[in-house]
């Protein structure tokens, strides 16, 4: 395939960025999207130009590092995948592809397509844990049976990879889906009950401080989430929040 790429280039956090056009040719449909960008970068280096900076690491959809906004969609046109799992067979010869960073006030741009998502970590610092010491002097793992259904739901919520696609897809740049995934995981497990109130209040508070927007229930986040994190988690967090606020 031959493609035209329109890519956001921005030298640094304070620079003004712009879209720049590139052409790549002989792209195989079996390539991943990032491998296609590798090809472009090799071309640029060969020509003495600066390669496009984008975040990536595992390239198998689990680390949450890759984060491109492709043709107006976080992680591109395919469903249930991250950018690194997106394959070129989703595109056609002659296509023009727009590639931008995940945009949100709380995710400042570092360079080109790379953004700073440390706000996500700070929300976890505010309460995304169970306060248990790691000394190993805990009770036997099977001492508290947990209904399979709860365990499975907690697991589903816990599979969030912290990529930020939910924020990038939301017209309000809300982080509700991300935060609710962690709140839900612990709300569904007995281990999480003791600190449940503080957890939800503190995490939501930190989310607001970071400058993420409000949730207006549009549901774009669920559609673009590569891990299928469900809106039910937001509903559960809202209930937890209400419970905690009433005292």
């Amino acid at each position, binding site marked *: 395939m031959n493609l035209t790429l329109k890519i956001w280039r921005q030298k640094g956090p304070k620079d003004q960025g712009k879209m720049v056009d590139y052409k790549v040719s002989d792209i195989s449909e079996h390539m991943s999207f990032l491998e296609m960008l*590798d090809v472009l970068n090799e071309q640029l280096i060969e020509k003495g130009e600066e390669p496009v900076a984008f975040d990536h690491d*595992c390239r198998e959809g689990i680390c949450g590092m890759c984060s491109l906004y492709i043709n107006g969609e976080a992680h591109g046109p395919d469903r249930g995948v991250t950018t690194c*799992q997106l394959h070129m067979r989703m595109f056609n010869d002659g296509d023009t592809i727009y590639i931008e960073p995940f945009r949100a006030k709380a995710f400042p741009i570092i360079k080109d397509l790379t953004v700073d998502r440390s706000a996500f970590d700070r929300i976890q610092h505010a309460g995304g844990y169970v306060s248990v010491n790691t000394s190993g002097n805990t009770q036997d793992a099977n001492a508290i049976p947990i209904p399979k259904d709860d365990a499975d739901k907690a697991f589903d919520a816990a599979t969030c990879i912290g990529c930020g696609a939910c924020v990038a897809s939301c017209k309000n740049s809300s982080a509700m889906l991300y935060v609710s995934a962690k709140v839900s995981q612990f709300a569904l497990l007995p281990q999480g009950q003791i600190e449940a109130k503080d957890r939800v209040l503190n995490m939501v508070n930190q989310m607001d401080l970071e400058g993420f927007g409000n949730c207006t229930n549009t549901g774009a986040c669920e559609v673009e989430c590569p891990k299928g994190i469900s809106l039910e988690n937001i509903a559960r967090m809202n209930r937890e929040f209400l419970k905690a606020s009433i005292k």
Partner: protein
Amino acid sequence: MSTLDSKIPKGPLKDKWTSYKDKINLVNPANKRNIDVIVVGTGLAGGSASATLAELGYNVKAFCYQDSPRRAHSIAAQGGINAAKNYQGDGDSVYRLFYDTVKGGDYRSREANVYRLAEVSANIIDQCVAQGVPFARDYGGLLDNRSFGGVLVSRTFYAKGQTGQQLLLGAYSAMNRQIARGKIQMHNRHEMLDVVVVDGKARGIIARNLVTGEIERHSAHAVVIASGGYGNVYFLSTNAMGSNATAAWKIHKKGAYFANPCYTQIHPTCIPRSGDYQSKLTLMSESLRNDGRIWVPKNMDDVKAIREGKLKPTQIAEENRDYYLERRYPAFGNLVPRDVASRAAKERCDAGYGVNATGEAVYLDFASAIQRYGKEEALVKGLDASDAKLVKKLGQDIVKAKYGNLFQMYEKITDDNPYETPMMIYPAVHYTMGGIWVDYNLMTTVPGLYAIGEANFSDHGANRLGASALMQGLADGYFVLPYTIGDYLSNDIRTGEISTDSPEFEEAEKSVKDTIEKFINNKGSHSVDYFHKKLGNIMWNKCGMSRNEQGLKEAIQEIKELREQFWKEVNVPGTANEFNKELEKAGRVADFLELGELFAKDALHRTESCGGHFREESVETDGEQKGEALRDDQNFAYVAAWEYKGEPSDAVLHKEQLEFNDIELKQRSYK
């Protein structure tokens, strides 16, 4: 040749750790506040160590090159984590886990370390459950287990195909609690580029802020390296793109011995490569071998027809399939250890039976599992077990519940539906058993410098069993290092803060800056990847699944030449003082180009076959084991620890003789 002191405590194997813990020196809580520890890496090993050390009261400075500790490559581990809980009542025990691990490692690991690992394994599960790690459970609400290669019990705990993710998020949450309390200072997007040794002790590191390019000095009373494995020396592997040997290699250059670099694990079940543009390989968890059967066609005509697209695997009758693992290893079948399974796949493909265009693929087939589960489920639900369609549907649902995310991952990459047609798989580089040499305390040959997790060499001998790396990483970080490091730090309670204004820091910083300048000013004609791919080719072809004297000698020469060419011709665009991914890669590849040569040198000197290290010259020549790998315990029952002396070719070999008092050395048989 000197001997190494492994500091293994005296006494019976099963009491060593307990009685040792009772006797080692401790640091009192008030003094811990005055002691700093640097931890490089936030994977299972570094993350768990950081959290625990901080909780004990030390000031921890943690580093990772990603934008968050949660992204360390431990996140990608799929299949599970072993623990001798014996919840299934199938005869498991600490001794059995210990035995399996030593045997699986082909008798090239240290008994005392492995026993301790097995001992603390059960605790890991308790710990993780307390943290809220959502392991798989059965309908009674209790923890579920699966079995993994090379063993006869079900001791593997799992969270679907995302066990590493869930365990890492557990460690990350424990870190977050300490970050919030100010006990861990987290340095994301930082790369350690050197260790600083003052008066013979590790006292700090030089790190590059990957966003600004600034070179920083960080001091501490001890330094812990938890930077993962070096599989990317092959360019293509199941590691993350950024996984690197730099931290390990830099400490090697400052005096830490590097052990058994040639012990690499080539994992049997990965998605085959599809083209030259390929940037990494994807693992399909070993857990799939519980239910998947591996085969190639028996007849060459069928192979040809398949390659030409004229025949589908599902059209080949049972009697025309060669389930070669079941045929060769009836006792373990598809669950032989990884090294054995990988070589068997290579053997079939080399003989011409590979089932894709490149001839490098075999089938992993779930059809019989789907049938089996489907029938079972139909009976349980009181439905018609002779209704083929229903049975298939029910069976697929069960397989989906067990391996759903792996099947989805496979389909997204290959565009093939593995519920309907067998997967295609081929071995790929996955894990490095070799690593920094450490003693029983996990200390390297440099005082105050520790190595944990995949970065050290300690527990897996020449071959690692599935689900044991997660166990080791967490054992090191949660339960072993926090004790042993106290013994060392108890001498540092009056030292006070370590200054970064010393000639040693000055010098280390300067050498880091010089190297960076060199890269930036070189303006050569080839990209970093150009060299990395070439190195990968040499490694795969000559230091891969099977090795011989001639190939290894060639590899040493070729890597050396490539390294010289690299320094002359590499092109690193951009500047030093900015976010510059090519510059990061250049430093990593420079280190791989040295490590690769030491790797080949180690492989050349070890003329026996053991575990993942297969020397064509050392095979059984007759009997039931004909053609299988042949170990040489007489001459090679030792750890090869290499001391840096300038060029890799000058490295000096030190031997740690391995003693087996509690296990009888046997030729491994999985027949």
